[in-house]
Structure formats: C-alpha cells, structure tokens
C-alpha cells in the first residue's frame, strides 16, 4: 500500500467536497475490494474518503411495491433482513451467498455495484429485477448502469445512495461459484416482474452482466424450467479462464437459468 490521506465524511455533501478537493480521490465503503487493490499496489489514491458513516446510505425499507436498500447496507444485513426476505427472498439468498462471513459483514451493496466486477452477484439482481440505482446526482435504470468490465454509468464523484428493487411476482437466483474464489463463475437471476414480463440476467459469464432475451421470451409464455430447455446461449464473447472455457460457461447459463426458475417456485 502507498501512503494516502484518510478522510471520514459525515454527510453526502461533505463526501462530495472531500472528493472534489482530492488530487486522486476514492470513496471507501466496506473496503473489501478497494483495500485489497491498494494492498496489491494496483490502486494508489491520494485521498480515501470513507463514506461508511453517512446515515443517508443506511437502512432497508419496503414501500410502494419496491424494496429500497441503502448503498452502505452490508451483504449480511440484506441476507438477514426479514423485510427483504418477505418481499424478494431471492435477493436475500443472493446476498447470503456472497463471499464469506467476513466479506458479508463489511462489503456493501453500493460498493459491489459501483465496482461492477464481472463476477459479482448483485449486478445480476439489479438487472434481473430492473432496479433503479439512486445517486447523489440523480438515478439510473439498471439496464443503463452496468456499462462494461468494471465500468458503470457513474460520473466522477457520483455516489450511489440507494437501490430500489421492484418487488416481482417471483424471482430466483442460481449461482455456480468459481471453485477457488467463490465469485460467480455463472450466476443467473430470473424474475417474473409485475410490469416488464420475465427478466433473465447473467453474471460471471461475460465481460459484464447481461440479459438473455430469448429466455425471457420463452418465460413470458411459460414461466417454468421446461420452457428453457432447448435454448442455448452462444459461447461467443463469453469469458474463458482456467476454471471455465466459454463453451462450459454457455452450458452452465442454461443449467443455472433452469435452476433459478425452479427456485423462483
């Protein structure tokens, strides 16, 4: 780790100001990605602005057909929340499958989606449910938020404040973990939404989270695992690495999608 200056922000405004004044600032939430990257000397911000103490980023509420989760809420809080479980059990399950207990008690929803790791779980839930990402500068629909590998629609200094997940009729998540890292090798989130039909979002398999329209169309007709049999996803543009080549990932998308639908009940 290189030397840096640490700031603790008490409010969104203060966080914005601290960031603006920094030569090369970075927001710190749970630190589960940022600190590790800094320790490996792959990131070297001049100023670290800790947003962990900002009250606006906390809290979970269910109202108006949506679950609203603060960006600073940890994975463990989401996994344990009765409100989340009651409204969207698949979301609570997903949070409970992230990393290990240590990671779940530090890592946050905002940090996860701001980072947009191609193997992260939350992006699948955001895209699969058609969530709205609220920020210090406005809001983004999930379809426009996840731009590319580690790239989002966030501007410099823009802070995610909350994520609003519309409550679906039913939803399910099936994750095939990378045997080593336990990130998603392939994770598929499916939902039968109230206004937007079926949505199928895949994480882990490509350079970023993406939807599978052909599966969505099939589920619109018949929301059952059987409806997906025979639909194959092309291996083109999927990731290949030590743990899974593109063709294996393509195959797993099919299997996990069916299992996610089965889990949605």
């Amino acid at each position: 780790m290189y030397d840096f200056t640490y700031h603790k922000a008490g409010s969104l405004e203060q966080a914005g100001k601290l960031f603006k004044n920094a030569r090369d600032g970075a927001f710190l939430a749970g630190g589960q990605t940022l600190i590790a990257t800094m320790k490996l000397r792959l990131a070297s911000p001049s100023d670290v602005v800790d947003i962990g103490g900002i009250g606006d980023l906390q809290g979970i509420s269910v109202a108006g057909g949506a679950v609203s989760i603060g960006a600073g809420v940890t994975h463990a809080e989401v996994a344990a929340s009765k409100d989340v479980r009651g409204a969207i059990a698949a979301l609570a399950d997903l949070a409970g499958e992230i990393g290990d207990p240590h990671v779940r008690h530090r890592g946050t929803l905002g940090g996860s989606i701001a980072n947009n790791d191609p193997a992260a779980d939350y992006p699948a839930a955001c895209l699969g449910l058609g969530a709205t990402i609220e920020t210090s500068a406005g809001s983004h629909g999930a379809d426009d938020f996840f731009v590319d590998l580690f790239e989002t629609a966030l501007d410099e200094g823009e802070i995610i404040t909350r994520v609003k997940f519309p409550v679906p009729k039913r939803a399910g998540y099936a994750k095939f973990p990378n045997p080593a890292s336990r990130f998603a090798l392939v994770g598929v989130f499916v939902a039968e939404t109230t206004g937007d039909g079926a949505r199928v979002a895949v994480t882990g398999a490509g350079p970023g989270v993406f939807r599978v329209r052909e599966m969505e169309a099939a589920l619109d007709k018949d929301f059952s695992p059987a409806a997906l049999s025979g639909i194959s996803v092309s291996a083109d543009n999927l990731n290949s690495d030590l743990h899974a080549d593109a063709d294996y990932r393509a195959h797993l998308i099919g299997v996990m999608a069916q299992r996610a639908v089965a889990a949605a009940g």
Partner: protein
Amino acid sequence: MTDTGIGARVVRKEDQRFITGAGNYTDDINLPGQTYAYFLRSPHAHAKLGGIDTKRAEAAPGVLGVFTGADLARDGIGGLICGWMIHSKDGSPMNAGPHPALAQEKVRHVGDHVACVVAETAAQARDAAELIDVDYQELPACVNAADAKSDGAALVHDEIAGNTVYEWEIGDADLTDAAFRDAAHVTRLSIVNNRLIPNAIEPRAAIGCYDAAAGAYTLYTTSQNPHVARLVLSAFIGIAPEHKLRVIAPDVGGGFGSKIFIYAEETVCVWASRHIGRPVKWTGERSESFLADAHGRDHVTQAELALDKAGRITGLRVRTIANMGAYLSTFSSSVPTYLYATLLSGQYNIPAIHASVDAVYTHTAPVDAYRGAGRPEACYVVERLVEAAARELKLDPAELRRRNFITEFPHQTPVIMAYDTGDYGASLDKALELADYAGFAKRKAASEKAGKLRGIGFANYIEACGIAPSAAVGSLGAGVGLWESAEVRVNPTGNIEVLTGSHSHGQGHETTFAQLVSDRFGLPIDQIEIVHGDTDKVQFGMGTYGSRSGPVGMSAIARALDKIEAKAKKIAAHALEASQDDIEIRDGTLSVAGTDKSMAFGEVSLAAYVAHNLPEGMEPGLKETSFYDPANFTFPAGCHICEVEIDPETGVSEIVSWVAVDDFGTIINPNIVEGQVHGGIGQGVGQAMLEACHYDPQSGQLVTGSYMDYCMPRAADLPSYKLAFTTTVCPSNPVGMKGCGEAGAIAAPAAFMNAMTDALGTEDVPMPATPQAVWRTLQGAAPAAAAQ
C-alpha cells in the same frame, strides 16, 4: 493406561495458546532496532540480467542497504544446496545447477530473488525496491516437464544439456520385460500427478540478528528442522561457523514439507544483519509463498501392469518425468527417486518391477517434498493401475487386491523396501464393512434414478516413514543421517523437561510426547514440558517431516526414558534397601514390590540432585540423552474407500462417504492421530478435486498466484469421515509406532480418482477432477456411450 498415558484422548496442551492468539510465531517476535527486508523478485520466467542499478533505491527514505547477488559473492556466501546425491543409471552424478540466494547473471523462474532492500520499515523497503532498475533481457522459457528434454527447449542452466538433472532407474529391467512378454493381460495408464502449491497457514518468515560483541548470529525462522538449517547455513552456505549460529524455530503454523528447506530469504536476512548492524526481519506475503516456496508433486508417468491368467500381478513398469523446477531445492532429488519408486510395490506381491525416473529442470519454482513426498505419487500410480486392471478384467477391485496382497512378513520387495509387518486383508475387510460395500449397487441405482452418477474407489496405500537407518540412507546418497536425539531432564523437584530434535508445527508434540513420559512414570502431564526448536537448547535434531517424529523422535525419548528409569530405580532401591529388580513404578511412585516401602518420584529426583545418599560410584543428577538410529523404515498402511456422486449437468462432484482404516502401529493419542488423518485426507482431496498449480505454458507466468485461482479445499468439500484402526505393532522401534502424518494425503488422491473414474466410466479423467474437467469428460464420453 493412565488417563494421560499411551492411548488416551488427551486434549492438546498447546491449543489454548493457539486459539487464544497467544502463540509466539516468528512474525510475533520483534527485536530492538529491528529493520525490514523486502525481496525484489523476477517478473520473468527466464531472463539474462544485464545490470542491476540500485542507486535510486539506496537514496530512498529509510533505506539502510540494497543487496544483490554480487554482494553475497563478494562475501564468499555460497549458493543454496541440495543435500541428496542421486546418480544416473550411467553412474554419473546428478547435474546440480548453481543456486545463488540472490540471482547472478540470470533469473530462472517468476519470483526468483533478484535483490534485497533493507529499510527502517517494511513499506519503505518495498517502495525502494520499485526504484531498482533491472535490465532484464527476456529469454524463452521451458515450462512443462514433458517438453524439457526436447530439442530446442530453452535451457534452464546453460551448461546442463537437455535440462536433465538425472536419469535414474530402479529394479530389474530384464526381469520386468520378461514378465510383460509372458503376461495374460496388461493394463496401461498415462498419469499426470498435478503440481501443488503448499499453503501453510503461516507464511514463511525470518529474522537475522548479529551480535557483534559475541561475534555470533541468531536466526529466528519458520523451520521444521532448525538444526539442519544451522548445519546447511554453516557448513555449505558459509554464513557463520556452527557454534556462532543459533537457529530458533518458535511456534510454526504448519509446514507440510515447505518449511524443511533452506531458502534464500533466511540466508540473506542472517547475512545482511551483520552488514546493517541491526536485526533484519522478513515476513513473507501469501503471494510470495505462491511464487517461491517449494512446490510439490508434478510428475508425468506412463505405467503398465502385467497380470497372469489368474489375476495375479507379475510385473510393473513405470516411466516418470519429474519436474524439479529451476533449482534443486534442499531434498528435492530424493523425492521422485527413493521416496517414490521404492514404494511402487504397494501392498502387493509383485515379482518384477522396473521404474525409470528422468528429473528435469524447468523455468518454474523449485519442487521438493510436500506432505507424502513421493509416496502419494507412487500410491496414485499403483492404485490407479490396480483399479483399472480390475475393471478391465471384470473383477471386483477388492478381490483383485486380495489376490495380490503380501501376507507373509518380513517381505522384501524388488525395489529396496523390506516390509516388516502388516495385515492388509484386515484393513480391507474393515473398510468394506464400514463403507457398506455390499450396498453400493443399490445406492448407485438410487443415484441413477435421481439423474446422478455414483462411483466408488479404493486406495490400499502403503508408505515408508521414519526413513532410516542412517547408514542405509547414506548409501543411497543422503547428505545427513536420519536418526533423532532426545534429552530427558528430571529436575530436582521431580518435574521433567524433554528436549527433542523433532519440531512441532501443528502436530501436537507437546501433548503426545508428554503422554509417553506420563505413561512411563505415572506422572501428571502438566509436570512434563516438551522443549524443541532451539539449537541452543536442544543438542541436535533432524526435525520433523516424513512422519518421523513418532517412530524416530519418540523412540529417542523412549530410549532416554529407559536410562532415567534405570537410574531412578537404582536410587530408590538404594534408599529403600531393596534390589533394583524389585522396584516398580506406578502413579508417580517407586515402590518395592510386595511391600509398603515406597518413594515418590520427586523424592527420587531430589535424592539424585542432593546426592547425599547415592549408590556407590553413581554420579549425581537425573538427566539422560539418547541418539536413536532406527533399524528400518516403518510401513504404515491401510485402506481408504471413497464414494462420490456427480451431477452430470454441471460436472460438480460430491464426496458422499469416506472410510479410512489405517494401521499406524501403536497409537499414543487417538484424537491427534484422527486429526492427522482428517487433515491428510483434506489435503489429498485438495489435490484430486481442486488444487492445481498452473503456469502459462509460453510465458511461464504463474496463473494460480492467489486464492482467486488456486483452489484450496474447504470444510464443505469434505464429508464426515468414518475412521477405524487395525493395528500391527511396529517391531523395529521401542514404541511400536509407524507414523500417521502423511497417510491421508497419500491415500486420498487415488481413492477419490478411482471413485471418479468409476462413476464416469472412463480412466481418462484428469487430476484435479474439477467440475469443468468432469463436464468435459462427460462430453467426450457421451457419444461413445451412445454408440454402445
């Protein structure tokens, strides 16, 4: 049996301090004035070093010194050594390339040591290392062992043709060829034993400290054998004479072999402490362990088994290429030879065996002993072959094994080993019962109905532990003897310190060794202290590896206890005016048989030290030493049965049952022994299911350089084991022990892979059988199955 004696489930004495964070590991030690070392490592697998410009680094804040290979050479510091001479079949000695602690002229693997920066803080040392300008002239790399000898392969050491370390053989080639000519059936397999990266929970660390007043050095280090480290650093590397170097290995958090060896970092730290004039500390980071701790395994093997019409094995032929990495690590040369090929007879009566082993250099981290060291590789070859042969011959694999078991002892194999005792049928029978082998077909059918594939696999392993006697290993090329020493000091007040040359880095010696003493005198275990890991306290020792602490280390203690017992009896007999033959020791009391005359153990020890009333001619004191050189190896053996269920949709496999029936001879503490078996199986399953060290075949970059890609076994990957023991007491040592530290890791890969190949219906499954590998196997197998 007392409640803390031999066979008692005593709770480990050391665990209180470990689980409350009160252990004292090398990194916990901070010396006044301590400085910090950082090692600059090669980013390339192979490059010529044009020049190393350290000027900018030397000027950086906090920097006290920047050292390169040239500095070590200037001081006459020798290279790291390999302490076991292997001769090729043509009689020539092995080709040991130079291994400077800091690179000279060339770097030979990613992570090779280029320079060392010493600074006031660890961060300053690391910052400064980024300012060292190294002129690397990149060269092509040779990464895979199978390619190392081919024409045009990049040479690791320019002067060593064909990257050949040695071409070694064992056994009778003509006799073996004849067996194959006459065979009714031959089973052939190509086997890759995957390379592993050791992952002790505590990374390596060292503090070198020079005391100018005494002209002496102290090295604190994460070592499994501090005396061997001192010997090598003195006699071969030339840091300091032996009497001017103290090596302390305090609490050590796991080793699995990787902390046997003498590495560059501790060498440089202890040497640099004199130049800096202050203690120099290095604590390895996990990424450094991945890059430069000695790796394990990495064999490519062609193996053939010959059988007659009756299903009796008549011959075994094995050709192995062993990857040694870029340099020969401390004991590396012995691993694919005397620790591997000598075990190729397994539990079987095989009249003819021939094995040839070509050891090669590659541009990868050095490879050396890792839990099991050679024996997991041998077990894997033999047990895969036997299982495959049974399938080809449509024989029950248990039956084929039984037909070929050695049943008479002692048994001389064609590959050096003379098995002393065992009962392989007994462990097989017990394992079949615990595994409900008879019910397997039903379980398989149930799995099939649920869309799953079920398989069962055996590993009837044998290993050789406590490698010895010294004269024998010397004749095979070992540079050291493999005995052990112990000193038992009874204090005047009757408590006891046992100084042992073994070293505990997780094995629980403070408990088991104390049980041996408690058992002998009937003393409470908290009156007994086990002292190890300090060359200034313990006279000498060969350390802990190869499951030798029980059979060799405890035997030395037993011998010293014999002497203590004899002297204590003499003192008591004299004081009680009885014959020494009539003295009995029980519950901490020495009494005259059949009388009420007795003395407490503490009264005897006090008598020994006050020396007011000792037998004529007896020296005062109660302290005895033993140097125990075993008469033979010991031969733990047993039967593991693994059952797996595979989800063919994803390739995910689950271990649904694991039975291990082991014969370890006398068992001192079943808790600890079971713990060793659990851990060993976990490590073996790690190899077979999850772990694979992967280098990019072109660039030689380590792809699995962190836990993001290198997959360690987790609790959820492992089932609840069913364990049992069938015991034949080891005849060659006074405790009757055989050793238990490696058995699980030796048996597990074969048992798991035999279960997987059974489930998948093909021998062509790579290890580790990751979900992707399994899925791919099924893709390949599907059309063939359809064609049937």
